[in-house]
């Protein structure tokens, strides 16, 4: 099983969720994060003094998937989250040893 972590632009949440539903993803966890990268933040003046907004609001989606579905999931995110503009985000994939559904105690494939 893999844990797919996608950092996306907040306004892309709806399309990404739909795209994931289409490839059969039924669960995910969302965190509001802030990202720093090639996309530059902006400098504002507040009462005449500068302040820099380096970290921009992003949404992080974590999706545990069966390894067999990994490519579909990546593909779905990639095609739905892109605006073609800098700052569209990243996808990270890592290995998961175990997945457990708390309610039933089901494990791994069954628990996703």
């Amino acid at each position, binding site marked *: 099983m893999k844990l797919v972590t996608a950092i996306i632009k*907040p306004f892309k949440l709806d399309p990404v969720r739909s795209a994931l539903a289409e490839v059969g993803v039924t669960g995910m966890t969302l965190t509001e994060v802030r990202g720093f990268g090639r996309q530059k933040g902006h400098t504002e003046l507040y009462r005449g003094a500068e302040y820099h907004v380096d970290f921009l609001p992003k949404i992080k989606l974590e999706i545990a998937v069966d390894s067999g579905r990994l490519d579909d999931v990546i593909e779905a995110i990639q095609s739905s989250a892109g605006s073609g503009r800098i700052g569209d985000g990243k996808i990270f994939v890592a290995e998961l040893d175990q997945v457990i559904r708390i309610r039933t105690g089901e494990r791994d494939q069954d628990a996703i």
Partner: protein
Amino acid sequence: MEAIIETRYALDTFYFLVCAALVMWMAAGFTMLEAGLVRAKNTVEILTKNVALYSVACLLYMIIGYNLMYPAEGINGFWPGVDWLLSATDHGTEAVLASDGEIYYSRLSDFMFQVVFVATAMSIVSGAVAERMKLWSFLAFAVILTGFIYPVQGYWSWGGGFLDGLGYSDYAGSGIVHMAGAAAALAGVVLLGPRQGRFGPDGKARAIPGANLPLATLGTFILWMGWFGFNGGSELAVSSVESANNVARVFVNTNAAAAAGLVAALLVARTAFGKADLTMALNGALAGLVSITAEPLAPAPVQAALIGLVGGGLVVGSIVLLDKLKIDDPVGAISVHGTCGIWGVLIVLWTNSDATWGGQLAGLAVIGGFVFAMSFAFWGILRATVGLRVHPDDEAAGLDRVDCGMEAYPEFAPAGGD
């Protein structure tokens, strides 16, 4: 005897000023209401619009508006003639004493009371066009509305123009202030279009919840309180038994209509939507207030409550209807001030036997038509030149960043992303 005349003059003037302070306070009420009903990312901008429009209204009305609306001598029933800058002179003691009760309050207290009314009319607009209009285009329109459109139509009724002659009866301005504001707002909204994502691909309305409902509630209470000045001050005198009684009755009726409007909207929303929709209840109170404003004196308190009750029901229906028509009004201003303004003007016929169908309909048609048409024209010019609407990306990111460069709640809410 002279001392008595002086004292009454003083009392009426003081009463006027107290009422003016209450109506000025309504500017804060609109601001809080609107700031509570928009999203966090557009909050600084709506705050800026509101403080600026109040200021612009006060300056423009001083520079030209008041003289337009209450000219020394109007050219004719339609056109008041131009006269710049509010004069500083007031009634001399001798003139007052000699006037045999004709002159019974300070001219500048009248200006003070009137100037806060024009600000109210303009405040109505800001809520309806929230979350997508350019700040500076909005302020340009504020100059036109408060310096020209509002005063001219105000002249027709309250300044002694032709609507007054036609018997149009509108005690404190359900039509002249509220429906006028709503007409200007409607024209703007039509030209501006709905907010991004407000109507789904299927055409169905989608909710965009307001960011801070305690603020919206506070705003409603402020408006409710300020309305005692708005309606109560429109008796224009308090210093006799009769006028004092009248002011008291206006207070009682105003309060009863608001209370009934709130209860009606709460119950209608509960029945129609299954839950107690606070924002509808707040709109209901304001609906009751607008409904009673055209005639807060003639009804018995129970009648006032009924008038407000209907207003409170109407506003819920109107909000749902506008959604169906894809007219996007984030705070319900057009329904509250427009729909209920019309209802308020018409229901005068129930309790005030001096009012006529002809007069009331003429008032509605003339004020609504004139303000809508002029506003449409000016909004249109703005759209064609500097533009009305912010860039879609900026709308997504939030107007605060684009127009104001700061966030309303930098530590609580994530700024609109991009």
